[in-house]
């Protein structure tokens, strides 16, 4: 019963309604094959939104994820072009490490210098983009410069699904485990929900935020490799503006911008919601410009909805109401 009233259930309902509407005009869209394609296409968004979720839970925001993704992707592509023999797992390990490093820089600035996260990540976002230009000289790394193994991984199929989708599924599961079942995950909620109380419970607020940023950066790094290898091209502006879509997925998924509230299920549904809109609109012949307006509308509806939900959860002042609850 409680689940049916939850934000996640409402969002799932909205997604089903959306699919039904699309299916009414284009039944082909809801064919299992196509839905799997939509999921695969949304996988990078899901990966980044999970990292962003950890950051937002701790009352921060990470605007540098797309720049992190692009820089890591460029470094992976350039390393691959320079040393085609390097095994792909080594490149992935490098992507994870580089992404984590960039996330950790954000986290350290927020933790030790106590600079507002939006300012820190706005700065590092620009810096990371700038570094891409410096190391690549503004040049593209094109498909023919990349090794076959490098490009093949995300597209390889396993039990009918591309590896990219499998990676997203595994990361969702691991992330859910981290959030729900580890002290760090619990700390994310406590630090964002009530920083004062978290300090008194012996938690280190800054260090918890540092780990959230590092986690976000690590996932951005992983996505950087996947992105570049999937599209088989790397350039300065890849995933430009993608950070806003990532934040939007979190907000639509019910992650409170005020911190401390939200679920992994919500974030995945939020990302899927955006992914479905993005994939369906061209099919139903709606201009991509409307797509932005529809995404924007969804964000505002979701925020208004969350604001209303948190308002009704106010103090119980009436004695009778307390007994009733």
């Amino acid at each position, binding site marked *: 019963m409680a689940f049916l009233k939850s934000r996640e259930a409402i969002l799932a309902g909205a997604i089903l309604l959306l699919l039904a509407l699309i299916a009414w005009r284009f039944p082909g869209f809801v064919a299992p094959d196509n839905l799997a394609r939509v999921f695969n296409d949304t996988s990078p968004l899901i990966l980044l939104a999970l990292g962003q979720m950890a950051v937002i839970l701790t009352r921060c925001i990470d605007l540098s994820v797309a720049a992190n993704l692009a820089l890591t992707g460029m470094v992976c592509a350039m390393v691959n072009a320079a040393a085609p023999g390097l095994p792909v797992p080594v490149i992935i390990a490098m992507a994870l490490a580089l992404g984590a490093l960039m996330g950790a820089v954000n986290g350290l600035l927020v933790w030790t210098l106590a600079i507002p996260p939006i300012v820190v990540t706005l700065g590092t976002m620009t810096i990371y983009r700038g570094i891409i230009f410096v190391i690549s000289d503004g040049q593209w790394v094109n498909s023919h410069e990349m090794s076959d193994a490098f490009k093949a991984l995300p597209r390889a199929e396993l039990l009918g699904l591309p590896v990219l989708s499998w990676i997203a599924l595994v990361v969702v599961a691991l992330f859910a*485990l981290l959030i729900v079942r580890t002290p760090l995950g619990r700390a994310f909620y406590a630090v964002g929900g009530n920083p004062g109380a978290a300090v008194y419970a012996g938690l280190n607020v800054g260090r918890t935020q540092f780990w959230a940023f590092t986690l976000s950066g690590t996932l951005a790094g992983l996505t950087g490799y996947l992105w570049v290898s999937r599209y088989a091209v790397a350039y300065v502006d890849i995933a430009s503006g993608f950070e806003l879509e990532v934040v939007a997925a979190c907000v639509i998924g019910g992650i409170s911008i005020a911190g401390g509230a939200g679920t992994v299920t919500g974030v995945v549904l939020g990302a899927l919601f955006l992914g479905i809109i993005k994939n369906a609109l061209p099919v139903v012949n709606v201009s991509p410009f409307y797509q932005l307006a529809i995404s924007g509308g969804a964000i505002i509806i979701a925020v208004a909805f969350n604001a209303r939900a948190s308002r009704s959860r106010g103090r119980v002042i009436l004695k009778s109401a307390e007994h009733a609850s």
Partner: protein
Amino acid sequence: MNMQAVEAATRESAPVLTLEGITKTFPGVRALSEVGLDLYPGQVTALVGENGAGKSTIVKILTGIYQPDGGRIRLDGQDVHFPTAQHATTAGITAIHQETVLFDELSVAENIFLGHAPRGRFGLIDTARMQRDARALLERIGARLDPALPLKELGIANRHLVAIARALSVEARVVVMDEPTAALSQKEIEELYELVERLKAEGRAILFISHKFDEIFRIADRYTVFRDGELVGHGAMADVDESELVRLMVGRSVDQIFPQRVSAPGPEVLRVEGYSHPTEFDDISFTLRRGEILGFYGLVGAGRSELMQALFGVTRPSRGAVHLDDAPHAIRTPADAIEAGIVYVPEDRGLQGAVRGLPIFQNVTLPSLRETSRRGFLRMAEEFALTRRYTDRLELRAAALDQDVAELSGGNQQKVVIAKWLATKPRVIILDEPTKGIDIGSKAAVHAFMAELAAEGLAVIMVSSEIPEILGMSDRVIVMREGRMAAELEGEALTPETLVRHAAGIGEGG
């Protein structure tokens, strides 16, 4: 009869503001019970009473922030009511609060006239006139301040003057001053007294709230004493002395029963030596034994909570040492304190206690995550078991342990916070105002539970501003005043009068 006496008699007979039979009830608490208050033009009325006597409630009613449940307010003999703060201001009632609410980035003049700035053409703010008016106002209260100066460049005393100028920028007939000298230095206090004299001379009625007896006797013409939300005395200052005021303030309250305890303190657990902080407290030394309840009494702002926060590692002392079981212990973070077995139940449940939005069990296990996890993973079953063990003991009333803690009443939230700390199996528990703002029934439960904890051998430190609670629960009491230890009292020496005297700094003879 000479002219002065006639004038005095006329003043006497015509209060500008009269409150009659004012009653205010909050859920579970009757804050004010049919109290009255008369304010006369050109006179200072001191409002005195212990913490929780209802002083701030009456100020909030006077200034339109709270609405009384019963009674009447009369201004010049006319019935009035103040549905909002704006109405009270318009009627000429203005308050200067202890912590002034001003804006750092705005200029002095802008602060003074915020919300009612003089307008010029097209409804735009007439800056020149605002500066002029501000200068005139500041001169009137004897403040030599440049109205164009940004507020952030002013010290506390000057900010106070700005707040006063702001209060006077609307034609104020009644000025309420809520502990205005609490944050001021001696020289600044003298200047404030002069200002009060000037306001008196202008015929304004002043309600002056203070805990400091010397200043009450220095500047007040009349007094009104509240105790537990009731009016217990009023009259002219000339007809009363310090002892009489203290007696009125503390008089035994009868309706609270404290658990009977046989105190049998065991060996020493905690010894604090020369604990000092650069700005908040100085040279605090005491010992604490197993099974003992040590009370910390003092006025609000005496440095008790600040001391406890330092003992818990939230802030760092500049000097001093902590010994646990005779071994020196460095406490640098709350995690260190929890590790060492010292826990702190803070006064402010909202900011420092419960994490709203998290379920009850996750609140309780927050400092015990290491105990409830295996190989880095939390075990929900153990979390529930640990939570149930302590919430059962505290008789927590909740629908389910995974209910959001924000849905609980204040008393039950407090139980969750206490359960959280007991679950860490502490040796020293510091309770800061443990029963503040909770209803009588929950209070009794908290008291009984404290007695039980002490009987089990836990060492308890209780910070409280309520005299009955301090007297009813403590084996020993340390009184703090202005960041220093004023007295350590036990046995016969522990009386309401001695507590108030030491806390307010009144000499034994007075």
